[in-house]
């Protein structure tokens, strides 16, 4: 058990971080290299300032809940914003994580006091259940759902379930800790290869559409359109 713990906490952690970072960078390079002003019909390079303006507009309105979709679907979009916020902030600023990183690589950053990430993890799980139920019941979502949707939901929520169990010392603590680290590593490795690649490609896609609207679809006219 100790050997397994040492392995997942040591080399496997390093490997998964490496896969995650290299994979994400590869995705971004692949995306940008695949852009083609003629095929996409967007003058990316010659109309740069309009493009940048459009890109910023697009990110601003969608990273913040300042868009029509949020107005039309406040519950779903609210839940989605909350889900992502908690999913990123909780693990990044959890004291235990920062300490581990500091022990391994001698770098550290600010933390959030302890009960808060715990609540955030619960929020992630609760919204995850909401997503699951919605997939199973809403006919518009059901028709477009496939196996991969359940898989990525499970991959995303698993570190939080195991995290809570480990934190509250439910079941065998060492086993839970190992499972929790593994779940986190699976998520890191899955990001570049699955739908979870929207971790970086969301930004690419939003910037691209923002540029499209900014450059071609009227960015130079009137008040401009945010999308």
């Amino acid at each position, binding site marked *: 058990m100790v050997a397994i713990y040492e392995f997942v906490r040591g080399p496997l952690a390093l490997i998964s971080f490496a896969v995650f970072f290299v994979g994400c960078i590869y995705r971004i390079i692949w*995306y*940008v*290299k*695949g*852009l*083609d*002003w*003629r*095929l*996409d*019909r*967007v*003058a990316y*390079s*010659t*109309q740069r300032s309009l493009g940048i303006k459009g890109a910023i507009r*697009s990110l601003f309105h*969608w990273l913040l809940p300042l868009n*029509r*979709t949020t107005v*039309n*679907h406040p519950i*779903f*979009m609210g839940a*989605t914003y909350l889900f992502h916020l908690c999913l990123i902030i909780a693990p990044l600023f959890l004291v235990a994580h920062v300490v581990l990183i500091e022990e391994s690589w001698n770098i550290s950053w600010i933390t959030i006091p302890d009960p808060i990430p715990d609540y955030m993890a619960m929020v992630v799980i609760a919204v995850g259940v909401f997503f699951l139920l919605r*997939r199973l019941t*809403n*006919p*518009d*979502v*059901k*028709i*477009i*759902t*496939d196996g991969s*949707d359940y898989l990525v939901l499970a991959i995303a929520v698993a570190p939080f379930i195991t995290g809570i169990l480990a934190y509250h010392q439910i079941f065998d603590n060492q086993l839970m800790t190992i499972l929790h680290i593994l779940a986190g590593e699976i998520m890191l490795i899955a990001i570049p290869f699955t*739908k979870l*690649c*929207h971790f970086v*490609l*969301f930004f*690419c*896609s*939003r910037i*691209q*559409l923002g540029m*499209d*609207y900014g*450059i*071609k*679809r*009227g*960015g*130079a*006219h*009137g*008040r*401009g*359109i945010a*999308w």
Partner: protein
Amino acid sequence: MAEEAKTQEEKPQDKRPLVSRVPVKDKEMLDLLLADRGVTYYEEMKKFPVDTEAFKKTLDASCKSRIRTWLKICAHCGMCADTCFFYLANDRDPKQVPSYKIQSTLGEIVKRNGDVDTDFMINCMDTAWGKCTCCNRCGMYCPHGIDMGVMFGYTRGLCFSQGFVPHEMKIGSGMHWIFNAQMDVTVEDYVETCEWMVEENEEYYPGLTIPVDKVGADIMYVVNAREPKHYPQDLAVAAILFHLAGESWTVPSKGWEGTSLAMFAGDWACCKQQVENVYAAMERLKVKRYVGTECGHQHRATITEGPYWAGRKSGDPPVPGLHYVEWVLEALETGKLKLDPAKKIKEPCTLQDPCNYVRNHGLTDVTRKIMSYIAEDFREMSPNREHNFCCGGGGGMNGIGRYRKERNIGLKVKRDQILATGTKFVVSACHNCWDAIRDLEEVYKIGIKWSFLKPILLEMVIVPDHLKPKEEEEGANE
């Protein structure tokens, strides 16, 4: 039935196939297709094979990271569902969710790398033309910025390259290949129509001309082939308004047509040829600006997308391109055109925002400012501006017989939007929207009228004294 049997008998065994992967570029083929009315065409299509090797090559060359990313990161969240007017008009049928429509067509094509069969491609065609007008509304509401309208435009190109394209669209692109126009109107026909319209109207507007190929004019005016073909009066009114506004303007002979059914058909090579014709006219005549008629997709094809087909890196046409509404507003604001305020439309009226130059070119406020000059009681549709719904007939939908039933169902959304304004008069500066609104009145009989801007402006415009007919002037002097 008897007639059908007769035509079949008459056809020789070695008749030319109607369905093919190549565009129609000769008159004989065009006539065969026109005579067929789609009957044999769609029968032939059921047996037409998919060239999977060519399909793979096309995908490799054209399906790049933008589209692959859109297909991959779609979170299947369903936020696009109620943004689609087809979904709403079809009682929220899940099969009309944009994400479903694109994933089950282009998504599958990409997943299988083009290894699909005939039935699959026919379904693709029926989805790309019969369930989507490429209005791009869904793309504005997707949290991930996935524009399914753009992807259906691309899918149409794939379908076209494999021969799976609605009958009227095949003919449409063929017309452009042969006539450089969406209808069989030649340069001679067009120039004659211009002359005819001058003859018809110069008595009432002395000095009226339609200058053809005048080098160095300020404005080059480009029309939609429907106008010379079916509504020549529209051309006359355009001329009268330019004349009254004292514009230096011209129409080109070659390059007179700005629309592009090739764009709706997904025939990109033809789009390039078509738009280069118009650009060549701009350069040949050394004009300062382009003004297109009251057509939405003409503006999209010639001004918004055209530069890219023509390989113009700036993304701009050779000279600045204005939609007709932009010229009208400018003429009103600068006082070139003066309207009689007493003749403003008294009854409540509303305005249709065409997707092609509002959502897809940002001309959101231009038409509203024009409405303030012409209407006393203007009422907005809801939603409006870039959020407006497609008229229901865009993207070629109006012209395709195979999807008439689907089109008429789709019109319900626009019908209800108009009814909710409480008005009986719709102003529409777009041919497609105008047609769709006319047809929705024919189908649903809600008692509305509809109009382009030109006839309204002609009704209200104040003719400057020096441009009034002589007799009238003399009469006034006496």
